[in-house]
């Protein structure tokens, strides 16, 4: 083994495997878990949304499982046209930000959305339909919670709902951009 290689390897061995965070992170983690559990127990617009999304999920599973059949049969031109439009865009600039990190959410969503739009031609239509529908439902939920916050601006649970809906939207967009692409957007 040459000297520089051994030197680097030895230095790496000297690094600690554990590093204590500069502060205790558990109180924040616990608070986030509690907030999520409260939301899960509370019937609200997001629960209704989750129900709709669950139906969309079932449809998606059916669509994905039928991808091979779709390919054999050939996608109808109207089906392809129906998903060729860009994702429905909310108008974040048209509403007043409620959460301190909403600008970061919007920026992250815009980045992911641009990435997805750039790959739109490569994605199977059935997948795009599911993504578009999920985003549309979540945008509606975000709009509904924002409207409720206009009436009750200090409602902590509504603010938590908004935070969760924004996170869910990012999750959908992230998952979509992480899908393996398909040349020419064919169903495989």
């Amino acid at each position: 083994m040459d000297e520089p290689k051994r030197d680097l390897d030895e230095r790496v061995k000297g690094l600690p495997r554990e590093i204590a965070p500069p502060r205790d992170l558990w109180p924040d983690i616990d608070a986030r878990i509690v907030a999520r559990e409260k939301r899960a127990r509370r019937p609200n617009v997001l629960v209704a949304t989750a129900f709709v999304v669950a139906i969309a999920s079932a449809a998606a599973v059916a669509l994905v499982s039928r991808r091979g059949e779709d390919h054999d049969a050939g996608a109808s031109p109207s089906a392809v046209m129906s998903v060729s439009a860009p994702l429905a865009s909310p108008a974040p600039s048209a509403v007043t930000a409620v959460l301190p990190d909403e600008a970061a959410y919007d920026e992250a969503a815009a980045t992911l959305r641009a990435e997805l739009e750039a790959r739109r031609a490569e994605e199977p239509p059935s997948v795009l339909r599911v993504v578009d529908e999920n985003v549309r439902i979540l945008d509606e939920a975000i709009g509904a919670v924002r409207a409720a916050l206009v009436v009750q601006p200090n409602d902590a649970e509504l603010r938590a709902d908004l935070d969760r809906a924004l996170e869910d939207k990012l999750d959908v967009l992230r998952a979509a951009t992480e899908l393996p692409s398909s040349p020419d957007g064919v169903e495989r």
Partner: protein
Amino acid sequence: MIALPLHPSMAETSTLPDEDAVRDPRVRAAQAGDKTAFAALYREHVGRVYALCLRTAGQPADADAITQDVFVRAWDKLAEFREECPLSAWLHRIAVRQVMMHHRTTSRRLRRVEPTADVEGGATAREARPDAAVDLERGIRRLPEAARIVFVLAAIEGYAHAEIADMMGCTEATSRAHLFHAKALLREVLDG
């Protein structure tokens, strides 16, 4: 909620069998909703998770938030953990995914931010380490994103290229190439 067919590499279910994995009663308790047990697991694992996030995130300011995300996500997904691998490996898998997502969604901002803080953010670790280690940490922080993640996982955490490829959604050859590149860059920095 997501109804999309995820690539297998992105799944957070445990897929790395380990015969030595010990069935921890705290894991079972946490899976049943015992948050005290989960807090104990947090205390045991936060040091390694934070170290991984700190080194792979490249930005010390982000490590705190990503570490929180990892444990919130772990609580959400704990029912899916089947103890086929050590909990630490499962948490690392989640951490790598969170770091990669973080890079993806904030890359534009990160490019504009000039690093100002040291990567050795933990006070205890900073006090304990000699200058050579600090230089190496700085060198790691300056590596390109993929090379940095692979180097941390392979050289520091001891994962095999097959495991890294699985975590990152790349091939083993790509993982090897990133490690080779990372080591070459680090030698340049450290010897120059």
